[in-house]
């Protein structure tokens, strides 16, 4: 553990943190733009050309808004809620392999901050803690809408986590590892998991929408019924944190979808290009971002296409449709693995 290594990890972590924040910032602009286009409007285009300064203006506005706290709120938990949500949203990016490795002077620098051998488990652990931010915020607000939103978020998270984990278990069974970098390396070239796990992918992406509290599963914030759900009583940058965390979660979820099912930084014919290892890594990094952007777009596309589910429909879908399907998927995967081993 020499000084060089610490500096490299520190720089990498900072860069990834920065990228996550900037991407989330511009995802808010993209969301509004795309919402506009889907509705035959133009979206924000006044702050800078194509509205590129809009996120800055929005952020600035949030900073200057009145910091409001309900009199009956639990002060400590009220502040802890958004902080926790933000922190947890940013934690996941540590284990995602953003690219292969760069080799300088014979030393290999991996583009993954922490290549822990239980990466998949870590991501799910962090995702599950994510609901605590919402739960605490909703509880501390001492508002019935906030509390209903928080309870909804909790039950929704638990319901969809099961199906999501089951979808992932099929991937883990196939690749025989929990390490994300290992899973990505096994999808070298065009040998992506989506070809083997189409059902698993559909289940995973549906559950990812639910876990991110995105439309059509945005019942915890559900403006029409719950005003703003868990963030009803929040204002200023605390609200900003909640909204921002949603976009970071979206970014991370897209990255997870790309990592688990679409080969991460791998792209077709990467071995036939005859490029050096470093060049491939850099191209792979951009390819990975292209994939993430696509899934980010899908997130928005879904939001502006599908209406929100009713709460009983949401629960029925989670428990009675997605979970059995995920179990069937696990069984089918197991069956094929057995066939492969015995032939």
């Amino acid at each position: 553990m020499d000084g060089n290594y610490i500096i490299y990890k520190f720089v990498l972590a900072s860069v990834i943190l920065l990228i996550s924040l900037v991407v989330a910032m511009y995802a808010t602009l993209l969301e509004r733009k795309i919402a506009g286009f889907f509705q035959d409007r133009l979206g924000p285009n006044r702050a800078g050309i194509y509205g590129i300064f809009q996120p800055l203006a929005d952020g600035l506005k949030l900073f200057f808004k009145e910091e409001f706290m309900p009199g009956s709120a639990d002060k400590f938990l009220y502040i802890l809620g958004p902080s926790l949500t933000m922190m947890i949203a940013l934690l996941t990016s540590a284990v995602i392999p953003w690219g292969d490795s760069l080799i300088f002077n014979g030393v290999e620098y991996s583009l993954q901050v922490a290549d822990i051998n239980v990466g998949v488990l870590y991501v799910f652990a962090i995702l599950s803690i994510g609901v605590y931010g919402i739960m605490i915020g909703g509880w501390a607000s001492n508002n019935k809408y906030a509390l209903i939103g928080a309870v909804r978020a909790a039950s929704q998270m638990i319901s969809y986590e099961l199906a999501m984990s089951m979808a992932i278990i099929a991937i883990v069974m196939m690749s025989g590892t929990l390490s994300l970098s290992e899973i990505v390396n096994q999808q070298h070239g065009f040998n992506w998991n989506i070809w083997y796990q189409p059902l698993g992918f559909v289940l995973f992406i549906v559950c990812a929408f639910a876990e991110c509290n995105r439309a059509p599963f945005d019942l915890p914030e559900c403006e029409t019924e719950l005003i703003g759900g868990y963030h009803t009583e929040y204002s200023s940058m605390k609200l900003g944190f909640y909204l921002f965390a949603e976009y970071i979660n979206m970014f991370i979820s897209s990255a997870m979808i790309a990592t688990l099912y679409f080969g991460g930084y791998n792209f077709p014919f990467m071995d036939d290009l005859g490029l050096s290892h470093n060049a491939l890594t850099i191209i792979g990094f951009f390819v990975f971002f292209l994939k993430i952007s696509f899934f980010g777009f899908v997130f928005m596309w879904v939001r502006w296409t599908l209406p929100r589910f009713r709460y009983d429909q949401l629960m029925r879908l989670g428990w009675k449709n997605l979970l059995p399907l995920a179990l069937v998927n696990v069984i089918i995967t197991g069956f094929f693995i057995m066939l492969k081993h015995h032939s």
Partner: protein
Amino acid sequence: MSANQNIGLLTNRSKVVSVKKMTFMERIYFPAIIKGFGITFSHLFKKKVTIQYPEVKRPIAEIYRGKHVLKRDDEGRERCTACGLCALACPAEAITMVAAERKPDEMHLYREEKYASVYEINNLRCIFCGLCEEACPKEAIFLTNTIVPSNYERSDFIYGKDVLVEPVDHRVDVSKRQTPEVLNFKKDKNQSHNI
């Protein structure tokens, strides 16, 4: 469609509603979702309906009822005689005025012996119905095809004579709102209930 089939239907656009059970394809919901995706995606490339307001302005009718103008006569004298009929006619009570008597040396400024020394229209109250214009016996007030611009202060929406009276060298054309037909129509006392 024959008359018999129409019995009980108020329009010919009504649809028969069925409560049949959904088929399997409908129940799995995915084909419908994909179809919806197609529809929304096609909207990405459709012509946008937005009009970029300050740069592009939507064409408005020549007889548009917008900002008011207080007309002068051919010799540049104010036509308004502060009779108060416009204020009386105004359903939103947006008009106030203070009347004054014309001095001998003001003959070239005001047409009548009595004139409005203060004439204010509160554009936040105004509903641009045009009843003031209709009530005016002196053809002094007209609505024009300019839009009342937005402002930061409520007080800035109260337009006084400095804004309302047309400049002598820059007359406002209201002929479109005052066609001969309209004039004749207004003069016809038998038709006054239609105005």
